[in-house]
């Protein structure tokens, strides 16, 4: 079992314990719900990690590996630059701003977001 998996499982167990303890001590619904939801989310993450780890074979987990061992392996695809992050953030900010200032700004943001979504679909083909 990797450290990452142990981390998520122990976090999930801790959050379940604290949520149950809080309910029995305080009988307070809002805090119990928040702690319970946290426990649920962490348990879900731990479960995902268990499944994902079966597929994983990471060089970083091999304490005796060197850079030469991993030579030639594709680590990932990294874009050096992209206009999409600024575009998507501006679209989201426009939607938020438009909700309180003017529907026209929100509409512009929504159009920009839709165009962005279309671009992603085209790029992913």
């Amino acid at each position, binding site marked *: 079992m990797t450290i990452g998996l142990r981390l998520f499982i122990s976090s999930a167990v801790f*959050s379940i314990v604290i949520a149950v303890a809080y309910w029995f001590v305080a009988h307070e619904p809002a805090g119990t719900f928040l702690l319970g939801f946290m426990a649920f989310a962490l348990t879900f993450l731990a479960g995902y990690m268990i499944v994902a780890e079966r597929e994983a074979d990471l*060089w970083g987990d091999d304490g005796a590996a060197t850079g030469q061992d991993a030579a030639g392996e594709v680590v990932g695809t*990294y874009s050096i630059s*992209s*206009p999409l992050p600024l575009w998507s953030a501006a679209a*989201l900010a426009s939607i938020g701003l438009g909700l309180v200032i003017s529907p026209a700004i929100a509409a512009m943001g929504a159009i920009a977001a839709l165009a962005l979504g279309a671009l992603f679909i085209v790029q992913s083909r």
Partner: protein
Amino acid sequence: MSAQAALRPAAPRADLLSWLTTTDHKRIGILYLTTSLFYFGVAGLLAVAIRTQLSRPANTFVDAHTYAQLFTLHGTAMIFLFVAPFALGLANFLLPLQIGAPDMAFPRLNATSYWLFLFGGLIVFSGAATNEGAAANGWTSYAPLSEIKISTGLGQDLWIVGVFLVSVATILTAINFVTTVFVYRAPGMTMWRIPIFTWEMVATSLLIFMAFPALAADLLLLFVDRHLGGHAFDPAGGGSPILYQHLFWFFGHPEVYVMILPYFGVISEIIPVFSRKPIFGYTGLVLAAFAIAGLSMGVWAHHMFTTGAVDDPFFSFMSFLIAVPTGVKFFNWIGTMWRGSISFATPMLFSLGFLLNFLLGGITGVMVASPPIDFQAHQSYFIVAHMHYVLGGGSLFAIFAALFFWWPKMFGRKLNEGLGKLCFWLLFIGFNVTFLPMHVMGLEGMPRRVFTYPDTGHLALLNAIATAGSYVMVAGVLVFVWNVVVSAFDREPVGPDPWHANSLEWATSSPPPEYNFDRLPPIRSERPVFDARHPELKPDATQ
């Protein structure tokens, strides 16, 4: 030839478009750091205005409503736009370098997070340009004060939208950090070999996962209350203002640790370098970080002791418990320095300043974790002093330590040491002159968030001293700015490892090339660069 010497400096691409479209984690990190320092400058000016108003009783420098906007924007900027985002920026720059990765796991998501943070901050501040002014309900924006019936202005709405965008940006960044550390470590970089700063960022990211959605939900509900006829926090409609506080502090207290755990990591990197020793108790430091993170999720309602609506003993007990892992960390840092060959370069001075100030903030934190004391100190200047010793004396000093320590790695030039030491002493003296008297002000009964006060007891004298201290702090910050200007003209490159440090970022050129490493040294411990410098002490590969 060593691995370090074989690397070449990055070819600079300085055009504006390349910065606007960059997905390089180092550039995004520098953008984060620059933006958060800009917000720090604005928030600092607001603080000077606050202190000027309070410099004497019945002062008329600003009126009550303006004062409320000042402390709201000051608190919001320092917490949401400076201390926490600075850590995210630093981690953006350092984290892939420290684990030997070419970039973040999701570079475009990373850039999106930065832009959301920038726009969120600008939207918060844009409230000041509206007719009714900016939000004026403190950085907590408690309901029902922030409900539409009381806060009718657009400033409050802009605050909600801006802080919401920042919270989304923070969650996205945390996803990036955790994925990068778990998946993109270099060959040999096992989890028990990653630097303490990276460990602290993993713990911080977990806290962000758990805490920030509560803030986002709180803000959404407040927005629904204000504009869509909701009554979640409106008692007249059957809602509960206490629910707002639960949601807010379920985020708000872990946020304190989001603002401090990264800086525990910063000084855990700096102290061993300037003590010429390995970190004392690596495993203990890591476990203590996760103990603090876990416990911090169960203490939120110690901010609500005086509401009478929470279980005081439960939250008091949990709050006291946090002192234990924090104490473990202090012993680790002292143990690292013990019998070390300590040198007092500027990053080390700021780290020592962090230890002294944070210790005081921590002790007063233990005091107010006790409900009887909290009932006395709540909403007074004692709390203002406590939180500033934690986040100003703690985080701020670690931020300056980080700037001086990693500046050569970011820009290939060192900051001037003489000016750095002057900056430290001005900030250290100014900080303590400003905030130490606030403990006494609070105990003498001065409430926080008031724009004036009566001339009773020692309040006039103590406030005058605190204001003078704040001006000394401004002088310290100006010396830092001057240091940056002076150092920009320094053409002497520093090389990959000017401090003779330990972790992997010092194995590459300063500044690092795109994709970070031309060649990685073997990683056989948590100090791969030290191992490369001292092959005679090389640890066994199987350790």
